[in-house]
């Protein structure tokens, strides 16, 4: 975190965790889906499920899924805009267990090109967020850095090939986490970088052997 997470963000009220953080979680879910949202089912956990109306959390999550920023004055109108754009958004309450942060949310998204993703994240205060699960893989990243998310076969060298492409493009890795379900099975990797990842690097990574899917997430 940096000083502008504390003095800032500039945002539409009333709650940094329930409104601004919710917008950013929507932004991240949209980025991970990688295309415009056609249908969203949004599950609210803990404090999110109990106080979402009063904080405009539902409006904020919908605004985030439409790619708006936390200080966008259209946020109070997010449902109307979604309806006009033909985006279906519905809400439900869920229980993610006692260990989940009280301000947690799970998105089930379908995009306009029929891609899908399920993302879970939490709003951890002051507008800061953390993504904790993508498509059933436990992950941890904040959206504070540009990032790529790969789904690949767990094979020797699969990771090194990705980082070597980044290094030849002058992209420095800030943080990196790898997750796998079983040895040699499907694995997921989050690489957070200091520089944005350009199209050349992104496309090259997508063509690597063992790579099932690659998503690029801009800093939000």
């Amino acid at each position, binding site marked *: 975190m940096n000083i502008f997470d*504390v003095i800032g963000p500039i945002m539409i009220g009333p709650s940094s965790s329930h409104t601004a953080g919710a917008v950013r979680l929507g932004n991240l879910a949209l980025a991970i889906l990688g295309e415009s949202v056609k249908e969203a089912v949004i599950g609210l956990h803990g404090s999110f499920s109990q106080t979402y109306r009063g904080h405009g959390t539902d409006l904020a999550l919908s605004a985030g899924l439409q790619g708006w920023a936390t200080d966008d004055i259209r946020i109070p109108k997010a449902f*109307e805009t979604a309806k006009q754009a033909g985006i279906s958004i519905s809400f439900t309450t869920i229980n993610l267990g006692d260990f989940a942060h009280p301000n947690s949310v799970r998105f089930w998204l379908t995009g306009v090109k029929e891609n899908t993703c399920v993302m879970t994240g939490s709003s951890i205060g002051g507008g800061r967020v953390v993504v904790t699960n993508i498509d059933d893989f436990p992950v941890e990243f904040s959206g504070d850095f540009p990032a790529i998310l790969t789904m690949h076969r767990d094979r020797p060298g699969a990771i090194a090939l990705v980082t070597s492409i980044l290094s030849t493009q002058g992209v420095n890795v800030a943080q990196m986490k790898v997750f796998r379900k079983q040895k040699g099975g499907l694995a997921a990797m989050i690489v957070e970088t200091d520089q944005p990842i350009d199209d050349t690097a992104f496309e090259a990574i997508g063509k690597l052997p063992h790579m099932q899917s690659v998503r690029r997430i801009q800093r939000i």
Partner: protein
Amino acid sequence: MNEKLSLQEWIDLAEQENKDFGDFCIEYQVKELEISKEMLLARMEEMLHVMQQSVEIGLTGIQSMGGLVGGNGKKVESYRAQFADKSIVGSVMSKAIMIALAVGEANASMGRIVAAPTAGASGTLPAVLFSLAEVRGFSIVELAKALVVAGAIGMVIASRASLSGAAGGCQAECGSAAAMAAGAAVDLYGGSPSQVGQSVAITLKNMLGLVCDPVAGLVEVPCVKRNAGAAAQAMVAAEMALAGIESVIPVDEVIDAMAAVGNAMSCTLKETAQGGLAVSPTGLIWANKIIAREESTDKG
């Protein structure tokens, strides 16, 4: 990222180098963010401009989304104009009260504010900074520098405790905002780095244990008036620190105590609207009214 920062460590470094705490914090942030001092201060000035606009929105007497708050900043403004000789706390603090209420009301009406550190506590820093600026004529650059001090204090609190009402109660929101404002005020008034630390420790001690119990779950009652209270606490602590009064418990230990209190606090008192004022008979009547009203509205 999860490393614990120490305010005492920064204070010691600043004192060793014989630096004003604001200058020390600016140098630290310039290195950390890899931006120029001018850029850092320019971004802080932008924050101050938005804060000023929030005050203006609030002083129009705007009503909140939930309808529980609104118009109180304007009431203090009128009282100040008509009965200046009747102020109990004096002109500076009465102005701080007015600004805190105005920004809190702008926030509750889905207006544009600066979360500093959070939206619920967004009235406190503008209240202290702008009311002091009026009497002492501080420039926007001096106020921007004070915001860097406030931000540095907030970063330490975030790393050792929390800035979220859901995780730490209102002490983590209004308490942190007040501590940040106190440190900023001490630095503005030429206090030493050590005095900045004392003001932070004293503020947090005086606000320890404050619960987050929003009526109907809205950032309205008691949040808006608590910002006025927090601004006053910040000024009380800053005054003590400038007078040379020291906290027996060192600042980092006070922050750690706040974290422990937050952890021990029942979930009903951490923004869930299940305890405290939220479940008072009148609080519940309002909650039922507001929820019934929202459910009857078709949101598409």
